[in-house]
């Protein structure tokens, strides 16, 4: 009965789901934050500090998903990186809006997979746990998501196209990107994701004193997008110019 093995056994042992995601998120941010501390040779431009946006969970209507689909995806994203005593989570970071925008742009090829996967997730939830996914208690939502993650939900005949693990991995990856990626791409609102993993932020130069403070975990986060520096261009207005 061997199926997709999409989890990291070592990382999960003894860790809560949130612990696991935070460990993974730290690695993800390092990959997603362009050049960060390695750009010290570049000529620094005057950075424009970004305002810290208020934390808000409500996403409002999305462009690419129906209200019902949005409700399911919102519940899923909320369990992948929940808000808890350690700080706000993926919803507050704007991961839902990030995913919606990505489905119009770089991830437009995934729109059908989202719609089919969300429908299958909800059918699976109703079949196996007796209620719509968004209406389940969080422990049951987590149990459902584990079954989706491991691929065990596939055989329930609720409409997953291929292994349910593929759908889980897609949403998880996009949730991480929308939480821990550079705010330029529409997520990580108020630098919630970077604060969550104590990422010190994008800097073009690091002084000896800052290095010492970083190692002592005393360095205040920079709270700037890489694209607030003139060296980096995306063709899209920097977050500080978009009135975020």
């Amino acid at each position: 009965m061997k199926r997709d093995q999409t989890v990291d056994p070592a990382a999960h042992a003894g860790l809560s789901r949130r612990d696991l995601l935070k460990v993974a998120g730290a690695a993800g941010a390092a990959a997603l934050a362009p050049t960060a501390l390695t750009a010290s040779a570049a000529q620094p431009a005057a950075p424009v500090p970004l305002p810290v946006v208020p934390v808000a969970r409500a996403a409002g209507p999305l462009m690419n998903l129906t209200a019902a689909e949005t409700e399911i995806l919102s519940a899923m994203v909320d369990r992948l990186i929940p808000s808890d005593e350690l700080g706000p989570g993926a919803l507050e970071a704007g991961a839902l809006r990030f995913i919606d925008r990505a489905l119009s742009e770089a991830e437009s090829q995934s729109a059908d997979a989202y719609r089919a996967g969300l429908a299958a997730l909800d059918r699976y939830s109703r079949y196996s746990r007796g209620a719509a996914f968004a209406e389940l208690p969080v422990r049951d939502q987590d149990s459902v998501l584990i079954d989706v993650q491991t691929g065990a939900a596939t055989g329930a005949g609720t409409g997953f196209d291929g292994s349910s693990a593929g759908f889980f991995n897609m949403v998880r990856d996009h949730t991480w990107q929308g939480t821990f990626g550079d705010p330029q791409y529409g997520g990580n609102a108020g630098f919630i994701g970077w604060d969550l993993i104590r990422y010190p932020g994008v800097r073009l130069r690091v002084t000896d004193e800052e290095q010492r403070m970083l190692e002592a975990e005393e360095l205040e986060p920079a709270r700037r997008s890489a694209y607030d520096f003139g060296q980096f261009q995306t063709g899209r207005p920097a977050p500080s110019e978009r009135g975020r």
Partner: protein
Amino acid sequence: MIKAAGLTIWLAVAIGSTGQPVVGQPVGIVVESATMAAGQPMPRDHSPDGRNESPPLAWRGLPAGTRQLAVICEDHGAGNPPPWVHWIIYNIPPGASGLPQGIPFDPADPMPRGLERARQGNNGWGLAMYRGPAPPPGTVHEYEFTVLALDTELDLPAGLTRAELLEAIEGHVIGRGNLVATYARMPAAAGIQ
């Protein structure tokens, strides 16, 4: 109510991957369940077709000198190489006469009373929790719940693999019993919305 008596198997060989003989002759333990019967399909609530909760287990006939217990659930017809592990739980005190249904899968949730020191090992998915049978559609698999009695008290950390557990308890298994149930997937009806 206990539905059926479990199978009692007397073996001189441990279930370890090494195939090395267990020291002494394990004493037979009777393993039973309020929801499962030997050789019969288990309820869907112990599988991902339902709530995917660990089944209740009960045991009796522990050998004298039992100081701790461990439980392994595995499918000898799956895995590469077999078996595929569905559940491992250990550090079970000798006074426990079984396990209730639905052992928590989140380490943040408390274990049931009397089992506070029990820990779950990693299953075949690398998750330290119970995940039930999910054989390929159209096939019937067997799932063996094995109870091991140990002559020593260990304080093993969560997340051990089957091989790591067997290595840790090697030479300490003084009793063993099992219950084998079956399962085949129960796909949702087409009308499920």
